[in-house]
């Protein structure tokens, strides 16, 4: 099967073809945005310095290095995804306000973001956690940086990417949520396992023989 590739700007129609568990790659622009960016855009209601309509954001705090030959220009060293769940508090409003179509991170997001993905519409996808050099290799160029006063991990890095992935759809625009489904499964499997362990750990009355 050939690689499924999405190109920015992303249309609502592009999203219709994506369901949880699908694997795809991204071409075009990818902009980092995590805790502080969400805080500024939603809580402080600041104007976004980058147009995200039809765009993709990456929940990520990279290691960047300023180029010695051209100050003000940066190269990416390592850039893996951060825990998306931290953005759950504001992501729904963020989708509404910015028109972003794709959020990439690691781990799942919750019910509010799922609502946001249906209404947007938008999609959340995961990049394999910790694979920061692999991700850096998919970055063609760092074109710009905004809000660098937030520090290296929290700034908005505007990147041009090629075949950025693998990306696995975790929340689709129909409202299906892969990680919430998994969590239910784990919670069910946990009960009999804990019960079985706890038949053997009544150490308060001394070790059993």
């Amino acid at each position, binding site marked *: 099967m050939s690689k499924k590739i999405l190109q920015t700007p992303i249309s609502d129609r592009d999203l219709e073809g994506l369901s949880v568990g699908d694997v795809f790659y991204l071409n075009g622009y990818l902009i980092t945005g995590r805790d502080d960016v969400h805080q500024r855009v939603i809580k402080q209601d600041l104007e976004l310095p980058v147009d995200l309509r039809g765009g993709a954001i990456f929940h990520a705090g990279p290691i960047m290095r300023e180029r010695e030959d051209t100050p003000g220009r940066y190269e990416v060293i390592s850039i893996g995804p951060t825990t998306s769940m931290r953005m759950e508090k504001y992501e729904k409003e963020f989708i509404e306000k910015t028109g972003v179509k794709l959020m990439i991170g690691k781990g799942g997001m919750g019910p509010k973001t799922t609502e946001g993905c249906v209404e947007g519409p938008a999609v959340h996808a995961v990049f394999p956690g910790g694979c920061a050099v692999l991700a850096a290799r998919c970055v063609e160029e760092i074109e710009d940086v905004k809000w660098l006063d937030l520090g290296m*991990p929290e700034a908005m890095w505007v990147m041009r990417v090629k075949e950025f992935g693998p990306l696995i759809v975790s929340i689709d625009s129909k409202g299906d949520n892969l990680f919430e489904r998994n969590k239910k499964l784990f919670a069910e499997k946990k009960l009999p396992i804990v019960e079985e362990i706890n038949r053997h750990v009544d150490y308060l009355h001394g070790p059993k023989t």
Partner: protein
Amino acid sequence: MHMMDSKQQLVDLVARFTEYSAKHLPDDILNRLRELRAMETTDFARIIYDAMFENIDMAHELSRPVCQDTGVLQFFARVGTRFPLIDHLDEALRDAVLLATRRAPLRHNAVEVFDEKNTGNNVGYRIPWIETELIPDSDVLELCVYMAGGGCSLPGIAEVLMPLEGYEGIVRFVFDRITTYGINACPPLLVGIGIAGSVEVAAKLSKKALLRPIGSRNENPIGADLEKRIEEGLNGIGIGPGGLTGSMSVMGVHIEQAARHPATLAVGLSTGCWAHRRAWIRIHGDLSYELLSHKGAEI
């Protein structure tokens, strides 16, 4: 050797050690990940493990940090009372962090509390975090560097249980957290559990548990048995790499304990992600050294 020259030499050595540990996973972690990879069969698990190992190889080849989150730096030192630079140790470790941050480079991860400013150099108030134990009559420094990433620090939790909740309460506490917060923390995780009489002791011991080599067991046979039971139980849930389900869940479960108060049963939980950057080095009085966590490595 002049003391200041040798201090600078220690700074340089610890900086190289720190940089190395950001870019290369320790032997025990690599071996465990290879074993776990072989046990997985699903497409998702294959995609994630393929990415992980490609990433590990690329980090090695390109000399770059394995994960972009190089953590808030923590040092755990066992220092001989006759180690010649004992009086300069804290200062040397701070200077080493500054140097490694520039050289590696490492991500800037020290945000001052209240001022909410990133210091931009990984040094901040009480950071790097340094814990020291003394070794009597020795001139050796055994130093562990741990890169406490945000993602795998997030599941951290400690609580004081009433003793009658028993060890059953501890088991529930661990399973509840690992099957919820643990999913997003880059599994397969290393799970560290501390059991003690008060909350800060349990929390500290849970972190110390993460510093032990994979495959080591609690010194107490009952503790070792509990480690095995929790480990097998968590693996039975099949969290899989990246939390996307699979045959296994964790790299290991380690428990460390301190005698408790009769009226309290405190439990702490720390987790390490699959990219568990925890390295040990032994530095002698003459500053010759060997890496304990990465056999035969040149730094």
